[in-house]
């Protein structure tokens, strides 16, 4: 059901763990539904200089977390906000239909982290 790229990324995911000096954290999902994604960002001068994740979920959720964090490192906040779940799916070379929601989680977790950052810095 998974393509080789998803399996390869699941095998060796990038950006795992907490980011000690993160200034933005976003959490999406809940354990009773079977997946939670937590994204840690370090933002300097409007640029995402580092990103890490912790995910409770299936192989697709872990692979989506890995590619999504990779895709936004070095990007501006605006660029990261424009990342859509379809971009994550494309980067993974496709996901099975019932796993598309994992890519949505990745998009939402990044948006939640940026919202957290904006609230801390404007509020």
């Amino acid at each position, binding site marked *: 059901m998974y393509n080789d790229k998803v399996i390869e990324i699941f095998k060796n995911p990038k950006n795992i763990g907490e980011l000690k000096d993160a200034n933005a954290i976003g*959490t999406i999902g809940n*354990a009773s539904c079977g997946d939670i994604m937590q994204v840690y960002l370090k933002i300097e001068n409007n640029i995402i200089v580092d990103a890490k994740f912790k995910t409770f979920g299936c192989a697709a959720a872990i692979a989506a977390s890995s590619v999504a964090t990779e895709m936004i490192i070095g990007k501006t906040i605006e660029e990261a906000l424009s990342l859509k779940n379809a971009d994550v799916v494309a980067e993974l070379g496709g996901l099975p239909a019932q796993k598309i929601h994992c890519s949505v989680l990745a998009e939402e977790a990044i948006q939640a982290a940026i919202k957290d950052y904006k609230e801390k810095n404007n509020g």
Partner: protein
Amino acid sequence: MKVYLDNSATTPLNPYVLEAMLPFYTEKFGNAASIHSFGREANRAVSDAREIIAECINSRPSEIYFTSGGTESDNWALKGAVSVSKNKNKHIITTLIEHPAILNTCAELEKQNVKVTYLKPSKEGIINIKNLSESITEDTILSTIMFANNEIGTIQPIKEAAAICRDFGVLFHTDAVQAMDSQKIDVKDLGVDMLSMSAHKFHGPKGIGVLFLKTGSRLGKLINGGEQERGLRAGTTPTPLIVGMAKALEISNRDREINNERILRLRNRFIDMVLSEIPYAYLNGCRDSRLPNNANFSFAFIEGESILMRLDLAGIAVSSGSACASGSLEASHVILSLGVKEELAHSTIRFSLGVDTTEQQMDYVFNVLKKTVDDLRKMSPLYDYEKGIGSYV
């Protein structure tokens, strides 16, 4: 290393079984319903197979009906009992932990105004017989309780349940699909009216099963057509599959004790290793009244499918929840019915050992599993890896 620990999903065909089947695809290809010598040859083989299977389960040959497998046998038992019942209101009693072949058939019957009671198991995964007798009403036509659960392997008190149903004049059916390989089945001693089995769970071919139907019990037809199976189950007799099923059950019966003893020792050793050396690992279902080849754990803070995939990448085949459920995102209905929290139910893996499983394989599986659980917990937002503390349980 390749390790197959999904024997509850299916088992490899025994080479002796294949050998017995092959002539019935080629030189002995006749239709068992034909009168000529080709047909008679096939018919004889089917009769012999029916006798072998009857002897294995202590029934009469005329009580053995061949079907396409466990699912059809379950469908037939339930739908057939409902269709011949003259009750104005029809009531069935089953359990929350049945296979989808029973649960989805019950759901279908509910749409036809059949009332269904679902008995809840104990935390240990065993049905309380008292709940069965309390649920029987004057409308109850049938009770169906699985012999052994497909996910957690717990063995139900079938003999006691059948006795209660007999007292109340209620038909009793058991889905024995998971039990056939390791449990000695004696339908007379059990006192069941109907019993479903499937050959591929005991090293026989896929696509063939049996419904045992006790003499005197009546059942409506599920499939209309020719006069095969005493006019109750139409369709050209699949001679090679039937021959294979009989051979497989014969071998399973012969080797049962030796296999059980060896597999049980490997399984118990594995459970002990997991529970003592992997923190926050929980065994689902009681340990004693359980199929010897089943171990089912929840590993808190990590998700079942990702454990399954990691093990698969190391050549180890297991199942998360039940195989039928792995395309869906819902936690196993069996694990939830035990009262396990939803987040923990998502963390469930079934290991089902088989005749080919070795100690060396189980050591390898344990080592890969321990590392897998550790790696996945490092990336779990529910677990503080440095402190070894999780956010629940």
